[in-house]
Every structure is written in structure tokens, then in C-alpha cells.
């Protein structure tokens, strides 16, 4: 098979011996300015060329049109003839009874025309206007000619050819670029890697599947890999810069292949990124899950440096950071609560997610706004080729995804929904509290993609979710996310990609306390509009991003209304607060040589807390307190307070051997938006608080260092990373702080500093019948706040020094897989009473420990899963699988919350609430129509 790659046009020559291709392009060769605007390429796919220097002699039995003559000659003889900007249809070839040299025939035929020809080694001819022909052609020109010829010789080796003679620019190293896509869906593959075997050069695809490599003309072997896809290896002949699009075939469903590679070969060693975890839904499918639902956040929790307070807790903690220190993005949209159902499910429907990338502290400069991490969830486009249906049915929830082209290869959509149907089940549980409880959620995704052409497309994404939880008709909450995003991508030239995005987001939460006397309904929320323009540049060794973004926030700090007739709660409503967070950034990766790659960036953010806004004034604005309130003032100015921060980012990779490297990274991060809560566990109703003139933004320095080493041909992937973060202007809450609907919330906060440090060890076995991963983290997360614990360092709420997860998969055969997951972590710190004392005759008081001095019992859990996949036939249109799992096999009662109960004058007892205190079996049926 021989392919010719013109500019955006691919022609398969196969057994066709002559192809006429009209294409517009430009070309500049050394010493001659041959501008070729229209090319007729004539080539042959068969015959023996060799280094034949004998002149081809031909008999011409009758006079014929020159163009027809050339077609016949090329078809039957080992020569190639290019015709450039010359009309041969009027020219004729005279008959010759005896064999005459081809040169002679061409010279005679062209004699009275404006065209002339060049003969290269008697088997390669170029016919072009005389004005453009120069005899001073460079050696590169002819080398490229030869390469082209050789590529035609190697047709049986499935050689892919990039570029053409006409595109050769001897002044520049050819740049090979293209898109790596899913062969089945045409979806771009993000994070796919290419490796040039001969020089170990590599490249990874960006969010649109694009890659770029700089390769001198020559022959190469290319390896292309991505998790869950069959690795492709093939020879490539590079003649000039050009396009090489590559389609990867899925490794069917996981069980079709005994061996599934979780990461592109040596990606962790090659990349300059440090502190990055990448997850795909394919990887997640191997992990035993609660209720059989694969879940991105649950997968992340198995990664080193990522932890949670426990089952039922909203969000996740990264490298000792609070839940609100994670920027959770769905494409360019921001999610303020990524959890469903008390945190048992994340908000991301796995069927519409392409992959997830978690930057732990060292995010590129195009991301910002949070101190600890960036979780970037990339959604996928709908299928441009055919209708597909995918879904799953579990014990309490179901999901369905439909995707199809609207205009084939032009416009597609994907629509997906998930919902629970658990309430009917609760009604049948013979426990009154459960019968009077409700827990449900739904989410819906819709995405419309239109490709204007191969260089530009537009996406419209919509997302809506809702949660409802009520416990025994006593308390509960509801919350919902809405996201809308319109983005336009345009490739400019061959090296630039412009992405413009407009996003709308809204998060509303509502907390209902017990009905009756204290019944109250508390509503809070945050709304935002975002604009972002990002321009990416990629030239192989250098890739860069430059961009600008603005986010307009409107926060509802809370309004509370009495619930029910008997409530005595007073209705209170706080006015909305507004702010604008803008950023300008520049960042890029530069491969200095094959051993050293550096990544550097700079981000400048400018934040405005804007008016008009009525606020309290204080004698000392630095330390606002109730006792120093001087009054209440109306701040009419648009800018009440502004902050500007320069945030440098840097990371580098030093390759020690082909399979090992050292990396280090630094990032300055700033956070203007904080979640306010002093409850013992995060809840969906925690309030988002903007930075104001009294509440300054938090800033952090993040340092990372890592050693990465892969063994046994990428079968064993290991890493050891060390991190350290310090935070300025970190705040914690005064004892007994009142944060609900408080219009002087700044008086309830105490300021100080924070630090987090740790070591992360990761061992990942990719291949074989037994594969899996072991991740262990030792870390500490501490605060030092004036006014708390005598201004001594104390543990943060999520300081869990030891955190271990072990996932093991036993691939029994192509259909059957057994896996287990064991998790262990140190119990989190809490503040509990340590003793009590009498007050007079009638009262006693509990004496609480210093903040977070006591630890709850350690957390550990074992899950198992057994999956029966679809059959051996990959061609089946309807694929099904069953997953049987048991979550928390040995019924460990891990604490969600620890609290006191005291009945009358009896001694108080410490009670542990375990959300899942026993083994939890489930079965899920998944199906896919393709």
C-alpha cells in the first residue's frame, strides 16, 4: 500500500498506477524559486526502480497526445514524471519506429512549448514552465527526490510517506504533524504518544489529539500508543513537512485483550510533568467500585497523594490540600461540587468522559485559581460515523448514552443521562428512619459538535445535575449544577491552534434543617460567566500556550427562611457579592536535547471584588472583630478591593536512561475563592466565599521532585515523588464560629500559615495475567494560626499520614476478570472532648481537646469485583458485560463522623457513624450497541 499525503488530501494509490491529483500548495526550493501552484502527480506503484541510470528508450508507434503518452510510459516503465503548471493536452508525441531515448522524445515534444524538463538519473522527470526551471538545483532537492522514489519502492512494507518534494524546504527541518484518533469513532485521542524509535524523540497529543514532531527527511519507525488501544508500529518516510494522521484501534473491550497497557510507553518518564495523574475510563473499569459504577473521583483516590475524609465526604484532598483547593474543570467549565449522593458518586458520567488529568500542585500556567490541584475532565464528542448506544443498569441507578452523526463526518451529538431509582427501595426497608429518608440524583449531558472543515470546529456542551437527600424527615439538602459551554477551535497554519470558550455555570445548594421549631431552609450558591482564549503553538521541540481568561462571579452568601408553620427562625438574606478574576498567561515546553526538557510559564491574575456592596467597617481592617466594628458603609465603587499576583511555574525533566528520569517542579498558586465551613465533614451546602477587602486571597508555593523508572519494557512503571507546599494567609475558624448567613463573616476567621509535605511511591504493573498497582503516600498537612492551639502547628482536618491503596487484577481469560482493591489510611484528626467538669449544681461542661488533636480509628477496606465481559467475537454489534462486586468485604465500620451523644445527665459517649458499616454487594449490567 502506498499513500501520498498532499496538503489535507490523502490519496490511496493501492493498485492504481497513475493518479492525477489537483492540489494547491506552495513550495520554495533552494536556489530556484519554483512556485508550484498546481501539480499533477504521476507516479507508479509497481515495477522495479533500483538505481537505474540507463536511459529509457521507447518506441512510439503512432503520434499521440503527450499527456496520454506519459500516462502509458509511467504505467509500463519504471519512471516517474511530474508535470508542474504545464498544459500537455495540446502537445503531441511524434511516432518513432526505433527505440528513442525518453529525453529525446520529451525534448522534441516540448520544443515549441513554454515547458521544459529535468531528468534526474534517468528515472525521474519534472516537466515545468521554462521560466521556473533552473539547472542549479541543490543536493537537498535531489535527495528529496530520491527519498520519494525510494518510498515508492517500499510499497510492500506499508510505509507511510509524509510530505512531498513540492513541500520540501531545505532551510527548515520538516515538521510532521497530525491527529491521532479513535479508528472507530474518529474521536481525537488526548495524551496519546508517538515515539520515533531511531532517535527516541517523542510527542504527546494535546486536548484535540494533535501532535507535532520535527524530523529530518529519512526513514523512521514510529510507535503510537494509548491506554486501551492497540499499539501501532509502522515505518514512515519523511520527505518534507506534512501531515500524518493516525487512527488507533481500541483493544476491543478490555477483556478482549489479555494485555492492556495502562499508559503509553514511558510516558511518565518522558513527560516533563511532575505530580500528574492521568486516568481514563478504560483504567477505571479495572477497579472494583461501589455499586459497580466506575467513577473518576474514586479512581483518583487510589492515586498517590489523593485522599478523602471518608465515605460520604464530598470532594477529595490532594497533597494535604482542602477540598476547595482543587479546581475541578469539565473542559473549560468549573464545577463547584463534583459529588453526587453524599460523595458516593462523582458528577462525571464515565460514558461521556474521554479522560481525566489531575495536576497535583504543578499545573501549567493556563490553569489557576486554586492552590492544590487541577482536575481536568475532558468530555468526548459524539460519533461522527454511526449511531451508538451505551448504558448500564445497577441496583439503584441506571445510565444511558446515545450518540450519532447528524451530518456524517460533519456534525454529531452525544446525549447522556444518569439517574437513581433508589427511593422505592428505601420505602421497603423495615427501618423507620430509612423509610422516611430520600436519596437520589440525576445528571444529564449533551454535546453537539460541528466540524466546519478539517481546521475548525465548534462545540456546544450542556450539563445539568440535581441531588436530593433527606434523612428521616429531619434534615437534608438539595443541590444542583448547571454548566453551558460554547467553544470554537481553529487551526491556524500548521502550528497554531486557537481555542475560544464561553462558559456559564451555576451552583445552588439548599439545606433543610429539622422541621418544626427550628425548621429552616438555607440557600447558598455561586454563579459565574467565563471567557477564555487560548492559543497553542507546537513545533515539536517547542510547544507553548498563551491566553487570557476572565471569570465573573456572583455569590449568594446565604439566605435563610423559616421552614414549616412552627419554625421560629427569623428570615435573613445576605446580598450577593460579585468579583472578577482575570488571568493572562504564557507557558511552554522546550526540549533542549533528548535528555533535558524544561517547562516554564508565567501567569498573572488580577482580581477585583466589586461594588456596590454594603459592608461593615472596622477600626483595624487587618484584624476585623465584632468589638472593633465602627459601622456599616455602602461601597459604591466598582473596585472595592483588587489583588494582583504573578505566578511563575517551572518544571524540568532530566532523562537518566531511556527508561528513567528525574523531574522537579515549582508552581506559585493563588486562590481567591474559598469554601467556608466549620462542620466536621464537608457538606454540599458549604458556602463559597469571595476574597474581599478583609479576606485576603491565599497564596502557595508548591515544590515537587520525582524519580521515575520503568522496567521490563514498560511493564513495571514506578515513581517516587516528594512534595512540599507552604501557604500564606490561610485561615481557620474561631472556636464556636457562626458562619451561617453571617454578614460579618470576616470576624469569625483567624489567619496564619499552612504547610504540607510528603513522599509518594507508586508501583504499577501493566501487563500479564496479574496486574495492578500499589500506591503509598506518607504526608503531613498542618496549620499554624494565631489564636488556635497557642499558635503551634496543628494537623489540618485531612492530615492522614499513611495512605495506601493496592489494586490487583487477575485476568482469568478473555472474558473473566477478578480484581480486588485494598485501601488503608490513618484516621483523620478531629476535635473531641477529652474530659468534663462541673459548673455549679446543675451544669457540666465538656472540655474539648486542642484543635484536631485526636484521631479517629484508621480507615481500611477491601473490595472485590468479578467481571464477565462480552464474548470473544470483536465484531459483535451488541456488547454486554456483568459486574458483580462486594464493597467493604469484611464489613469494616469506617467512621464518617464521630460525635457525642448524651442522654440527660448520663455520661456522654463517643459515637461513630459509619455510612457503610457492612459489606455492600451489587451487580451491574452494562451494554453497548455499536
Amino acid at each position: 500500500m502506498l499513500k501520498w499525503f498532499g496538503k489535507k488530501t490523502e490519496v490511496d494509490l493501492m493498485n492504481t498506477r497513475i493518479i492525477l491529483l489537483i492540489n494547491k500548495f506552495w513550495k520554495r526550493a533552494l536556489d530556484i524559486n519554483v512556485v508550484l501552484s498546481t501539480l499533477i502527480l504521476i507516479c507508479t506503484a509497481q515495477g522495479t526502480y533500483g538505481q537505474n541510470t540507463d536511459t529509457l528508450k521507447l518506441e512510439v508507434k503512432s503520434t499521440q497526445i503527450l499527456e496520454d503518452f506519459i500516462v502509458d510510459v509511467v504505467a509500463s516503465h519504471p519512471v516517474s514524471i511530474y508535470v508542474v503548471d504545464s498544459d500537455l493536452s495540446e502537445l503531441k508525441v511524434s511516432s518513432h519506429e526505433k527505440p528513442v531515448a525518453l529525453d529525446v522524445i520529451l525534448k522534441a515534444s516540448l520544443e515549441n512549448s513554454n515547458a521544459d524538463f529535468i531528468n534526474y538519473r534517468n528515472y525521474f522527470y519534472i516537466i515545468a514552465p521554462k521560466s521556473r526551471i533552473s539547472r542549479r538545483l541543490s543536493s537537498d532537492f535531489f535527495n528529496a527526490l530520491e527519498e520519494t522514489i525510494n518510498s515508492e519502492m517500499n510499497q510492500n512494507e506499508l510505509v507511510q510517506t509524509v510530505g512531498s518534494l513540492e513541500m520540501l524546504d531545505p532551510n527548515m527541518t520538516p515538521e510532521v504533524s497530525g491527529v491521532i484518533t479513535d479508528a472507530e469513532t474518529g474521536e481525537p485521542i488526548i495524551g496519546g504518544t508517538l515515539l520515533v524509535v531511531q532517535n527516541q524523540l517523542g510527542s504527546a497529543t494535546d486536548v484535540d489529539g494533535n501532535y507535532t514532531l520535527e524530523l529530518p527527511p529519512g526513514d523512521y519507525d514510529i510507535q503510537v500508543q494509548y491506554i486501551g488501544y492497540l499499539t501501532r508500529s509502522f515505518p514512515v518516510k519523511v520527505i518534507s513537512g506534512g501531515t500524518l494522521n493516525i487512527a488507533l484501534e481500541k483493544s476491543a473491550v478490555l477483556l478482549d485483550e489479555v494485555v492492556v497497557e495502562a499508559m503509553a510507553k514511558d510516558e511518565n518518564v518522558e513527560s516533563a510533568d511532575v505530580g500528574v495523574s492521568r486516568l481514563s475510563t478504560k483504567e477505571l473499569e479495572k477497579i472494583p467500585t461501589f455499586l459497580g459504577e466506575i467513577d473518576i473521583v474514586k479512581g483518583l483516590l487510589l492515586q498517590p497523594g489523593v485522599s478523602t475524609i471518608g465515605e460520604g465526604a464530598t470532594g477529595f484532598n490532594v497533597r494535604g490540600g482542602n477540598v476547595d483547593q482543587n479546581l475541578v474543570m469539565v473542559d473549560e467549565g468549573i464545577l463547584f461540587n463534583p459529588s453526587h449522593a453524599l460523595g458516593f458518586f462523582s458528577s462525571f458520567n464515565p460514558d461521556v468522559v474521554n479522560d481525566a488529568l489531575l495536576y497535583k500542585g504543578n499545573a501549567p500556567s493556563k490553569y489557576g485559581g486554586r492552590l492544590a490541584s487541577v482536575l481536568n475532565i475532558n468530555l468526548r464528542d459524539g460519533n461522527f460515523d454511526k449511531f451508538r448506544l451505551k448504558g448500564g443498569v445497577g441496583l439503584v441507578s441506571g445510565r444511558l448514552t446515545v450518540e450519532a452523526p447528524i451530518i456524517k463526518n460533519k456534525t454529531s451529538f452525544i446525549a447522556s443521562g444518569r439517574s437513581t431509582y433508589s427511593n422505592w427501595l428505601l420505602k421497603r426497608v423495615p427501618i423507620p428512619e430509612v423509610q422516611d429518608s430520600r436519596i437520589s440524583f440525576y445528571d444529564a449531558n449533551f454535546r453537539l459538535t460541528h466540524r466546519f472543515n478539517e481546521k475548525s470546529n465548534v462545540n456546544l456542551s450542556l450539563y445539568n445535575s440535581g441531588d436530593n437527600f433527606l434523612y428521616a424527615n429531619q434534615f437534608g439538602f438539595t443541590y444542583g449544577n448547571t454548566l453551558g459551554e460554547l467553544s470554537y477551535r481553529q487551526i491556524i497554519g500548521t502550528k497554531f491552534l486557537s481555542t475560544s470558550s464561553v462558559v456559564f455555570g451555576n451552583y445552588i445548594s439548599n439545606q433543610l434543617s429539622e422541621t418544626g421549631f427550628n425548621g429552616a431552609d438555607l440557600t447558598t450558591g455561586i454563579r459565574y460567566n467565563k471567557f477564555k482564549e487560548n492559543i497553542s503553538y507546537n513545533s515539536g521541540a517547542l510547544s507553548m500556550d498563551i491566553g487570557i481568561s476572565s471569570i465573573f462571579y456572583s455569590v449568594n452568601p446565604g439566605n435563610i427562611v423559616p421552614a414549616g408553620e412552627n419554625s421560629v427562625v427569623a428570615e435573613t438574606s445576605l446580598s450577593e457579592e460579585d468579583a472578577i478574576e482575570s488571568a493572562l498567561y504564557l507557558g511552554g515546553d522546550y526540549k533542549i536535547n533528548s535528555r533535558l526538557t524544561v517547562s516554564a510559564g508565567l501567569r498573572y491574575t488580577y482580581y477585583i471584588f466589586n461594588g456596590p456592596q454594603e459592608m461593615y467597617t472596622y477600626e483595624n481592617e487587618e484584624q476585623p472583630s465584632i468589638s472593633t466594628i465602627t459601622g456599616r458603609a455602602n461601597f459604591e465603587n466598582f473596585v472595592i478591593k483588587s489583588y494582583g499576583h504573578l505566578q511563575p511555574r517551572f518544571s524540568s525533566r532530566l532523562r537518566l536512561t531511556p527508561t528513567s528520569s528525574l523531574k522537579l517542579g515549582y508552581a506559585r498558586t493563588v486562590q481567591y475563592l474559598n469554601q467556608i465551613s466549620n462542620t466536621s465533614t464537608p457538606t454540599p451546602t458549604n458556602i463559597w466565599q469571595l476574597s474581599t477587602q478583609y479576606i485576603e486571597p491565599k497564596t502557595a508555593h508548591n515544590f515537587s521532585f520525582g524519580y521515575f523508572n520503568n522496567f521490563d519494557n514498560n511493564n513495571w512503571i514506578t515513581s517516587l515523588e516528594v512534595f512540599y507546599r507552604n501557604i500564606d494567609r490561610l485561615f481557620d475558624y474561631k472556636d464556636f464560629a457562626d458562619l451561617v448567613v453571617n454578614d460579618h463573616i470576616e470576624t469569625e476567621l483567624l489567619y496564619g500559615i499552612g504547610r504540607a509535605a510528603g513522599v509518594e511511591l507508586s508501583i504499577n504493573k501493566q501487563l500479564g495475567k496479574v496486574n495492578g498497582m500499589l500506591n503509598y503516600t506518607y504526608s503531613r498537612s498542618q496549620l499554624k494560626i494565631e489564636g488556635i492551639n497557642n499558635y503551634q502547628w496543628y494537623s489540618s482536618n485531612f492530615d492522614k499520614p499513611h495512605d495506601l491503596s493496592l489494586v490487583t487484577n487477575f485476568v482469568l481469560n478473555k472474558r473473566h476478570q477478578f480484581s480486588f482493591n485494598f485501601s488503608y489510611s490513618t484516621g483523620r484528626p478531629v476535635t473531641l472532648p477529652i474530659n468534663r467538669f462541673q459548673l455549679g449544681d446543675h451544669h457540666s461542661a465538656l472540655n474539648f481537646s486542642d484543635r484536631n488533636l485526636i484521631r479517629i480509628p484508621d480507615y481500611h477496606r477491601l473490595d472485590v469485583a468479578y467481571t464477565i465481559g462480552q464474548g470473544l467475537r470483536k465484531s459483535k454489534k451488541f456488547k454486554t458485560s456483568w459486574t458483580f462486586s462486594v464493597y467493604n468485604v469484611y464489613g469494616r465500620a469506617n467512621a464518617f463522623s464521630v460525635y457525642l451523644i448524651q442522654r440527660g445527665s448520663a455520661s456522654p459517649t463517643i459515637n461513630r457513624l459509619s455510612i457503610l458499616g457492612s459489606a455492600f454487594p451489587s451487580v451491574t449490567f452494562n451494554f453497548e450497541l455499536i
Partner: protein
Amino acid sequence: MILFFSCVDQIQLQSPPGAEDQVVIEGYVERGSDYIFYARTGYAESLDGVFYNESLPGTIELIMDDDPILEMVSGLRYKINVQQFHSIYGGDPNDSAFKLRVTTSDGVVYESTEQKVLSVPKPESMRVELVEKEFVNSAGNVEIDDFVELFITTPVVNDQGEKVSLRWDVTGLSLFIEYPCFPLIPPKSCYVKDSLAILKVNVLNSENVGGEKLTDFSIDFTDADERFAFGYYYTVVQKSLSDEAAIFWQQVKESNPEEQDIFSVAPGSLSTNIKNLNNPEEKVLGFFYTSEVDTIRLGVRPDESGRQRDECIQPNTDACCDCIILRNSSYERPSYWQF
């Protein structure tokens, strides 16, 4: 489904070392027509332990205007007429400041901050209201029952023009009439003191009051049960507090486990106004406060509570034949009882 698998159990957590050796010093000066002086020293007890009256070895002194006036015994109350007290020890009832000093046998000195006795505003009135409320019974089912809610109306500015914080101690008295168990002996009536409400901390920090008066401020909420069948008397002692003392009592209230659920704010360290002068870093437990008290009563007629007699219609308990066996009961009819 998740709720079905949830569970609650008791656990033991390891306390930091030395937690049970923490020093407790508490006391108060209450002024009505008499002064009541009280102080107690001792040690904190473990959560599941009982309180022992083990006091610190050493002396407890009550100091007024920097002069020691009384050496006290831990746990005892001292009562003296206000006029008599000042005629003996001098000082001005509205201006004198009190503090506690404890000196242990090994020479460690603990001292409280000085506290003036703030005049208490006179409560104007109280009223009750019968309300229906949903609650979860012991079987786990939601029930609706009648409750009696007690409201007080009072100024928060005293006769000195100061806005003061307030605390209320609420007690009740109910009438219990026996069943005629014995033919020749008429059934007796007992007056039973109800102290359940006093266990609750009712406190209001003046910072949280917008105006100068509290109107219909709820201070108690209790079952409209048989206690109200023959009438019920609320006795409310209104106490003035400094803002500092009010914060302490508010913290005591918020630390009460009965106020907590899993989404509650995590309480913290209680404030104190007592320091170890030799080692200021030592965390001392307890508080010394001063207050003026004023008492107000409200009688609740049987028809106001809507409660019908359903006890001792038959001799179904021992108390129906001998009511004096009831805890805190007395045959003596209080002078204020009018039903």
C-alpha cells in the same frame, strides 16, 4: 440503600496524656436580696467517669476590690445579706469588683479576672404557647405531639443604662393528686419540683440583641404532659452577665452533645477567665462570674396546656397512693400557688 447499610456504634478514643489532671476552678457571686458566694476547685473527670469532690489542696480566697474578704471551702455556698455585707466589708454594690484567688499547697497561684456585678434588668412578663411539633419517638416513628413553649419579655438595658447579657435558670412546679387508694384517707396533693429545664443553658449575649428589649424570647420548650394537668408554675431566675461570661455560657451550651448532629459545627476550647500566675500557659478549666438575679413566675392553668388528667385515674403507680415518694416532692403548698 446507603442508609440501610449505615450504622452507629460507640467507640473509645485515646485522650491525650494528662487530660484528667487538668485543674478546674469555678465560682460565682450572685446578688439578689442576699449575696451568694460559691467557689469550687478540683480536677476534670474522664468522659465516662463520675464527679468526685476532690478539691485542690490549698486555699480559696474571694477578693473584693483587691482585698481578700473571705476564705472559702470548695463546694460550699455562702449567703449574706447585701446591706449587711457592705456594712462589714465596705465597697459599693454597683461598683465593687470581685475575683477568686486559689493558692495551692505547693505555691501555685490561680487567679480570675475581676468581675463587677452588673444590675439585672427587671423582666416584664412571661407567657406560654401550646405548639404542635413533629418528633421521632423511641420506635423511630414520626409523631406529632403538643408542647408548651415559654416566652419572656424583658428589657436588656439595666437601670445603669448598660446593655447586659442575660442567663435564665428555669424550674417548674407541678401539682400531683393521689388516687383515693384508701377509703378513709383523702387523697393527698404533692407539689413536685421540676428541674429538667434548669439543666439547659439559656443564655443571650447582648451583642446579638438589636434593640433594648427582648419581646417573647423563647426560653423553654417542654412536653405538654401530665405535669400540666392540675396547673404548673414556671419560676425563672434572670441573671445579668458580662459579655465575657455570656460567651463562656454560650460555648457551654453549644458544646452540649444534645445540640449536636453530624453536620453541626465542631465545638472548640471553652474560654476561661482564670489563669495560673506561675505558668500562664497552663490551660485552666472553669469560669468565675458575677451576676444580679431577679425572679419572675408564671402559672399555667390546666386549660392553657390542654392537658387532661390521665395519671392516677386508677392506682396504676405507687405514687398514686403515696405521692411523697416522687422525687423533689413536697406536701407544702407554695405561697404563690393559686390553682
